Every structure is written in C-alpha cells, then in structure tokens.
C-alpha cells in the first residue's frame, strides 16, 4: 500500500533545486520529495499511451496532487472534480497524440490545471478576458489570508501579482522547481530568477510597510 515515491529523495532534486528551493534547509537531503522519480516518470510516460497499467500508475500518483492543487484555488468539490477531469483528459490526449514533449509530465499537468483554474475564474467572475493570468490565480489570496503575521500579510498584499503567484506556487503549493517552472512556462533558471525577485520584492514591501511607504515595485 505504497505510492510510487522515490526511495531516495535526493534523486529527484538536483543541485539547482537544493539551492533555490530550500535555501535554509542545508541541502537536498533535508527536503522530502513529493515528486515522482524522473526516470520512473519517463518510463511510465513512454508506455502510458498504450498501456492502461502505466497510465493508471501516473493517474494514481498525480490525482491527489492535481486535485489538491485545484481545490486549494476553487474551494468547491464539484468544480474541482470538473477541472481535475479536464486536466487528466487533456493529459491522456497529449500522451496518446504523441504531443507530449516536455521533460516533466507532472509539471505539464500542473500547468494545464493552473490554466483550467484561471479559465474557470475568468468565466465565473465575468472578468475582462485580457486580465493578467497572474491576477486570476486565487492561490496568492488564499495564502495571504492565512498568514498569521500581520506585517507579512500586509506585505504580501502589496507585492505585484506576478510575485505573489511565484511565492504561492513555491511556498503554498510546495512545488518543485521543475513543476513550478512548468506552470509558469519558463526554465528552472528563470524560475530561480523570478523567485529571487519575488522574495526581494516582498522584503522591500516589508521595509516599506515598516516605513509606512505605500510604494509597490513591480518587476514582471
């Protein structure tokens, strides 16, 4: 009764992850991985288009993760089920159509799930279609609302949507850099830059908060 979790957590995390994602953890060994071992994932992805067993393994591993990712944002089970089903339908279609080309299937699923959430939010709020997708990801608001420290919560509200989204993906969803960068459609290196900028922006907002200066800097 055990899921497909890599026995050696360090296998799933390269040096970039260790530096970027766990700056205070003292190395990768301290970070429990919730990610499927890339080799296992590649092996399953290669077979999944024609092998129900292989697809089933991917499904069983990612279903609770994708569902949780969506549910943290939409907070309604019927909607979560719909968007989760849409995500996996598209995942299977991509596998079967040979269109899957990214190196992380999990990251791709997160990306599709994030898009489904944004489309849902856009439709349900009848917002302007040109609204920035960073603003439409509800995760940052959910995270900000649960922060206990007043100054940190206020600072989160001040930073730009793009920064808030990066912080939410990293610290709220607890995504690995491969997954978070897939959601944002960038390389790991760019994600590292974005995360660094976001934390710097949050620090700046904290300083501004302390000084009662209401200037928000935006670096998209």
């Amino acid at each position, binding site marked *: *009764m*055990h*899921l497909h979790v890599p026995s050696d957590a360090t296998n799933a995390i390269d040096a970039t992850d260790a530096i970027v994602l766990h700056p*205070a953890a003292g190395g990768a060994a301290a970070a429990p991985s919730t990610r499927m071992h890339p080799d296992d994932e590649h092996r399953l992805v290669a077979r999944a*288009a*024609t092998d*129900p067993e292989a697809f089933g393994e991917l*499904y*069983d591993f990612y*279903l*609770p993760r994708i*569902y*949780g990712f969506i*549910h*943290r944002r939409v907070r309604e*089970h019927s*909607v*979560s*089920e*719909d968007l989760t*089903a849409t995500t*996996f*339908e598209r995942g*299977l279609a991509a596998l*079967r159509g040979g*269109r899957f*080309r*990214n*190196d992380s299937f999990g990251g791709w699923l997160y*990306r599709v799930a994030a*898009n489904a959430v944004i489309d849902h939010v856009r439709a349900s709020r009848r917002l302007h*279609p*040109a609204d*920035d*997708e960073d603003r439409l990801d509800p995760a940052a608001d*959910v*995270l900000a609302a*649960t*922060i*206990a*420290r007043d100054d*940190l919560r206020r600072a989160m509200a001040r930073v730009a949507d793009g920064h808030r989204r990066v*912080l939410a993906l990293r*610290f*709220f*969803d*607890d995504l690995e850099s491969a997954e978070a960068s897939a959601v*944002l*459609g*960038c*390389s790991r*290196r*760019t994600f590292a830059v974005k995360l660094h900028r976001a*934390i*710097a922006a*949050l*620090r700046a907002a*904290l*300083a501004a908060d302390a000084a009662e200066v209401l200037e928000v800097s935006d*670096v998209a």
Partner: protein
Amino acid sequence: MWRDDRELSHELAAAGTSARQQMAADSMPSAAFAVDLRRRLVSQIPPVADAPRRWSFADAFRGRRLAPILAGALLSVAVGAAAGAALIATRPQPTPPARTPAPIVVGVPGGEVLATASPAPSPTPTPTATPTPTPTATPTPTPTPTATPTPTPKPTPKATLKPTPVPTPVPTPAPTPTFTVMSLGATGCGGGVVLEWSAVSDPAFKKYVTLRSASASIPAAYPPQGGAVELTATRTGDRSATSAPDTSATPGTTFFYRTLALNSSGGVIGASAVQAASTAAVQPLGSLGAVAVDATRTKFTWATYAGSAACFTYYKLVYSETNPTPSYPNGDPYWAAISDKGVSSYVVDGLVSGTTYHVRLQAVRATALGPFVIAETDVLAYTAP
C-alpha cells in the same frame, strides 16, 4: 524584521505549510470520483494486442493503486463494491462491469427522433390547432422488456448469480423525467467550430454532451446512434458551462451538431435541434516582429486578425523557453492577452537577458470548455539582449 532572504523564505514556507495543512483534510478527491474518472480515462486507452483482458472495475481494487484515496472512511464501501465487482468478474461472460445502459431514445420510437417533434419554441402561441397528444416529449426511458414482475428491490449484482439470460437487469427509474428543448448555435471559425447552447435548469442534470455527425439526422439518444459521435471535449458536468470548441472537424467539411443534457443514469433530459457548421484552416498571420526598446523591454508587432468578430476573443502573445512551438491551448504561458482586435503591438518588460524565448502571437476563441486558435503568426526565436 528578517535579516535576509533565507529567513524570510523560512517564514514563508512555514506559513504555506500551515495554510496547506489547514485545508489538507478537505483537499482530497472522493473515492467515487477517483474510481469513476480512472475508469473513464483507462477505457480510452486501446488494449495492448497481446493482452486481451480488458481493464475491469475489479482491477481498481486489486493491489495497491488506489491506496491513498481509499484509505479513509470509504474503505468499507469500496470493499463491498469490490466484492460485487469480483462476482461480476467471475461470470463466464466477459462483459465489463461498467454500466452499458440501453440507449435512450427521445421522441417517437422508430420514427424521426428530433426533439423538435415536441414543443419547439415556435412563436405561434396557438396550441389548439395541433392535435399533439402530449405537450411534453416524455421519453420512454427504457425499451427493456421488463417482463419479469419480480420486484428485485435493489440493483445488487447478486441477482446475476441466477442463470437468467436477461443481460441487463436494469432497475428502471420509474418517474418520467422532464425534457428540455435547448438552443444551439454552431459557428464555423478558423481552426474549429464554436458550439454554444442554452443551460438547463432541471435538477436531474448531470452533464452536457454534444454529438457530431456527417449526417443531418442525429437521434437525441445517448449513447450516440446513427453514426453520430460524442465529442469528448464538449462533455462537462458544469451546468453553467454552455460553450465548447470542436477542433477535430476536418476543415472545409460541413458537420452537424446536437447538444444533449443527461441525467446521472445517462438518460436524455434535454436536447437541442441539429445545427450545421464547417471550419476553415487556422489563418496565418505571417511573421512576428521584435525590436528591443531598451535593456529590459522589447516591442513585438504583428499583422492583425481580419476575420469574423464572432470568432475572436483575444490575442495571446505566447512564449516558451523549452517548447519551440508554443501554443496557448496546449498550456504554454503568455505575456499579453489583448481583447482589441485592432491592436498590433505589445511591449514586454522584464525579460531575462541572454535567454532565448520562442514567441508567437495567436488569435484565440475562448469557450467555457477551452480555447482554440483561429489565427497565428510564425514562431519567433528571440534572445533577450
């Protein structure tokens, strides 16, 4: 105040973990949903040639795969279902245990089954002239003979232990469901057809599906009959999601569409009239221009989309560092969404110097069930200065 980014990251990680844990108990999919979706997806995978055994419901409970989902209080229910499924699996017939309900035909049996046979939304309010017997198109829900008067009270599969030749002892849901006439619009665009239908308010609603056929005669029946196919991209359990794309139609060919509303047992509770549409190819917009404005900003320019406004929702300036053919519907991100058809440029700020981006402008039609591309430029490989 935190001394450095490291301390701040620690604080954020703690806050995020706390927030996640507060929601953890509520963020798991139900076992019923997990099993149902799994079965639906796996059934779309063609079986391997040397393995004639189809995936069956019992497989879901054999072994370890559903462990995390079934670990909760629903475990006992699952065990009961597994026992039932195992009973079915041991029957000599290789029928998969998935329900195969008899097709439910709406309208006159044997005749043309268009829903328009009944209260079509005709503007003439004189109902006396028509000698139609019943204004509601009460769909005879099951054509099963139901000759056996033995009232098997429960749909327990134990009844199949008896060697009765009846293939499906379907417990007929006795009450006649109400039937809704839905509207449907089908708009042919570059790259796909936009399907838009009216919502149903029937509380028995479970999902919408849209059927497509090369023939104008599409029975309002489910599963589809008469050569019609179900468009999986149009299937949704969201009552308010009333538009969908069909991007699988061959460009230049006219197809016919009909949208149905179904209840939880697959019965048709609503149907639209049949509508026709044909798609064109995705319209090429030529090349994408790029000029660096300054160290961090780049201006992208393109030729505007000149087609129908009904097909246009917005431009997406999509990009990817890893995918050489970025596309918005395929999940690649974008820098800009522009809902004005006449805009022909956009300035992107914050590019990472030295990074190569694959960039493309796409004109997109959005629907409740996903977007599709109606026009696009070539991909530009752009390295930020």
